[in-house]
């Protein structure tokens, strides 16, 4: 039981993520989380404004069900399957983040400096979340997939477009991490 309650090492987690993808493929579907954003826009009536949202969203209900399950899974994992241990980040990561003004690094899944209501309800705090979310939503649909659709499924299916997309993920992620985060959080 201890092994379940402790954080899982990469060589357990990675194969289990592959299993999720393979099960969905075996069910005749595919592993792609960002398509749900398009589906949710379609349900919300976005088809009035663009062909992109005009499709039979009911055929995507299975994927929304996966999302619902994922939310429940997040709840179950934190409530019943965690021993509250801190994230074993590398010492350099902790030092770099301390320098950027982050304290209690790794004690929770997300930094309170970004996600606590106290910070969210400031102009800078809300701008960070809105801009970040917008870039994820816009970028993933432009690229036609996210980490699940391109990095896991696309690469597993040896798709060159997915490799290009993943290179893009890293170009953007590295620029943000090395150059923009220090401007936002460094003082």
């Amino acid at each position, binding site marked *: 039981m201890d092994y379940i309650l402790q954080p899982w090492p*990469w060589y357990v987690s*990675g194969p289990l993520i592959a299993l999720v993808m393979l*099960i969905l493929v075996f069910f005749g579907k595919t592993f792609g989380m960002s398509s749900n954003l398009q589906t949710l826009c379609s349900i919300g009536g976005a088809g009035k404004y663009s062909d992109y949202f005009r499709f039979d969203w009911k055929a995507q209900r299975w994927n929304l069900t996966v999302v619902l399950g994922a939310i*429940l899974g997040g709840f179950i994992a*934190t409530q019943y399957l965690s021993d509250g241990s801190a994230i074993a980040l590398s010492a350099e990561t902790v030092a770099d983040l301390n320098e950027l003004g982050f304290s209690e690094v790794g004690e929770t899944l997300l930094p309170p400096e970004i996600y606590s209501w106290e910070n969210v309800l400031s102009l800078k705090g809300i701008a960070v979340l809105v801009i970040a979310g917008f870039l994820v939503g816009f970028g993933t649909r432009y690229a036609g997939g996210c980490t699940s659709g391109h*990095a*896991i499924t696309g690469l597993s299916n040896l798709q060159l477009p997915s490799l290009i*997309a993943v290179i893009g993920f890293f170009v953007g992620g590295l620029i943000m991490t090395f150059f923009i985060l220090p401007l936002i959080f460094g003082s």
Partner: protein
Amino acid sequence: MKFLKFLLVGIFFGIVLVKSEAVSWYRIYEMFKFQAFHMYGIIGSAVFLGVLFIWLFKKYKIKSIEGKDIDLVPKDKGVARYILGGTIFGFGWALAGACPGPMYILVGTGVFSMFIVIAAALLGTFTYGLLQKKLPH
């Protein structure tokens, strides 16, 4: 009832991503700083096994439970949309520390400020839908 299996897959996915810490902003930061092997191990082992089993599925003509051949739809050809869209996504991924799967999962872990990120992601998707025909693909 036919949705139950998808609900169970989703629950399993949510648990795995929390227990792997792949939903953690800190782990994404650490990955982009190349300061630990953890995230590379997760993605690398998932892709390694994915390549192997998708190849086996095709080689042995495994049928899905719907009775069809396993045939993942190839991605459309192109470069611009993948590099540009991918880079924009990367900016957001490193800032939010969450991609679409973890966004939903983190709501389940009790981070309700994530609803703001999800709402903004929907707005981003909507904006892409409006501009789709004007963007290079």
